[in-house]
């Protein structure tokens, strides 16, 4: 690579920065449009992106599919809500408690499943079994969780300290989820560029080689799982406080797990932009689909998602962002002179 060609302000990078600024300004200024319906759609998208980002923090960097992140989402929701209803504890604190609980469970599952050689499949199954176990436990432990009926948070008036924003001030909730998404993406980015991120990449590439270099695979995988599940629980608290009602089958259902994973895989797992891109595309797709396909054609949208997933895995397993990155790299003049490079 010839040094004189690489400048910090190449036109491509400039364009990227400009686009990013426009996007950020757009999202920050969105509430000014005073369209609550639009806000709620974008908020759903942000929640999807946020959850995907937490999943991505673990599964994207370690290459281990977690089919059970819905469980941590649910643990967050239930913990903060139960603490709120029984002890009047502010959900802001409940969020942290839920996060800690989630992290403990997540790290336990990661540790148990990843101890032995057959990591990938065992872990996917373990996470799924854990998720289903927690769902069934929630359904059965009626005195604590109200079983299948779910929990409803009574509206006691607006109270910022109690994470209750209300419909009239929807933009407050909007900003909360926006900040959460930004925070999570920032954490994902930081991890990726940090020593932890490089360790994970090494483990992902060749675990035995990494272990030989002294990188303790299990420790870092479990640590990352802890971070990921801690953040995932926050989404649960947000969901609970925003929708004010939730039930086990919605929170922990099989489709929830798929909805968390699919946008990230579509957008590109392992990248910071991936979950966001995927969430945007999916939300847009869902909007279109809702208008085209009759509502009594159950399952048809999901057939499309399944097909997209199959085709994606065959031809574009890295997702959209990785695909675009590769294309950009191959067309940039500097790289054509360097040898190899993936």
């Amino acid at each position, binding site marked *: 690579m010839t040094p004189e060609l690489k400048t910090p302000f190449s036109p491509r990078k400039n364009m990227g920065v400009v686009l990013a600024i426009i996007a950020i300004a757009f999202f920050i200024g969105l509430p000014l449009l005073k369209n609550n319906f639009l806000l709620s759609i974008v908020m759903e998208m942000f929640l999807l992106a946020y959850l995907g980002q937490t999943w991505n923090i673990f599964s994207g960097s370690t*290459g*281990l*599919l977690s089919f059970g992140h819905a469980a941590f989402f649910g643990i967050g929701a239930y913990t903060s809500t139960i603490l709120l209803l029984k002890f009047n504890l502010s959900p802001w604190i409940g969020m942290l408690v839920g996060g800690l609980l989630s992290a403990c469970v997540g790290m336990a599952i990661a540790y*148990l*499943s990843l*101890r*032995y*050689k*057959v990591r*990938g*499949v*065992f872990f*996917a*199954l*373990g996470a*799924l*079994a*854990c998720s*289903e*176990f927690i769902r*069934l*436990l929630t*359904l*059965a432990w*009626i005195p604590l969780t109200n*079983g299948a009926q779910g929990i409803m948070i009574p509206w006691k008036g607006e109270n910022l300290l109690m994470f209750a924003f209300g419909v009239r001030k929807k933009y407050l909730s909007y900003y909360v989820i926006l900040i959460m998404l930004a925070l999570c993406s920032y954490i994902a980015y930081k991890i990726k560029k940090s020593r932890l991120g490089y360790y994970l990449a090494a483990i992902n590439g060749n675990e035995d080689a990494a272990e030989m270099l002294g990188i303790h695979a299990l420790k870092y995988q479990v640590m990352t799982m802890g971070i990921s599940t801690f953040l995932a629980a926050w989404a649960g608290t947000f969901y609970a406080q925003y929708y004010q009602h939730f039930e086990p089958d919605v929170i922990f259902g*099989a489709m929830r797990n*798929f909805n968390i*994973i699919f946008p990230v*895989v579509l957008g590109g797992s392992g990248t910071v932009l991936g979950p966001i891109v995927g969430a945007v595309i999916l939300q847009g797709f869902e909007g279109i689909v809702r208008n085209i396909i009759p509502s009594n*054609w*159950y*399952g*048809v949208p*999901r*057939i499309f*998602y*399944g*097909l*997209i*997933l*199959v085709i*994606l*895995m*065959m031809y574009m*397993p890295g997702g959209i962002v990785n695909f675009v990155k590769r294309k950009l790299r191959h067309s940039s003049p500097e790289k054509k002179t360097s040898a190899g490079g993936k």
Partner: protein
Amino acid sequence: MGFGGVVIAALINGVLTGGVYSLTAVGLTLIWGVMGISNFAHGSFLMVGMYITYWGTTLLGIDPYIGCLISMAVMFVVGWLVQKYLVERMMDLPHYNQMLLFLGLSIVIENSALFFWPDYKQLQVSYQFNLIPFGNFTSLELVRVIAFAIAVSLTTGVYLFLKFTSLGKSIRATSQNVFAAKVVGINIKKINCVTFAIGIACAAGAGAVITPFFPTYYSVGSLFLLTGYVVTCLGGMGNLAGAMVGGLIIGVAESLGTIILPGGQKQLLTYGIFLLLLVFKPKGLFKFAGYWQSH
């Protein structure tokens, strides 16, 4: 019928159900042991097998157990084609992609079923409510006994096939060492097709035999998929005999769970067993076999 009677009845019913779990797990563990791929669409194929049998009986009046043979034959071919044109391409990809591919496949299949038949269907046959007396304190449903009998014959058949026929031996050879199998001239592509087809046929058969007493609906597969995996892990991955025994164990455990646990959340026990397994004996109660021996 005292409490003891209830427990014994539960035990026996557990064994009967366990036979079906064994059949499902045998299909899973075979594919896993020989090809090294985790087939997350197994449950969906089971569901398709159920629907084929259901429509065979409802529309054409075929007895469900004959329908079972038809369904297995059809799904054998389907499995072969799926392996040849879809799975073969995924064999070299990392596990991550394979799992997602099968997940996508299962979502397509299940939601297609949801689209066509959104409701729960229950097959009705003339002998559905016949009971066989067992001892003098309980009686068993005839359809469950037949399901068990067929499931056990099928699993035994697969076991004997693998042990004594030359094709079976080729399959076992492939599961032990793919490279060595190639060296001795075994056509790996064909073996993969046959194995996958057998696995899917087992799933379809398991689905078919339970139609008289279990409702047929689009997501029935996911129930059996997870339980199938728990059985497979319990028996040791790739271990056929282990899967057979594991199925019975899980069947009994679930049955006893229905008595103990409130609200009949018997799957709680199944997943609990799996989690315990992860903690204490992740390699399963019996040893690994096949592909997983060296990985």
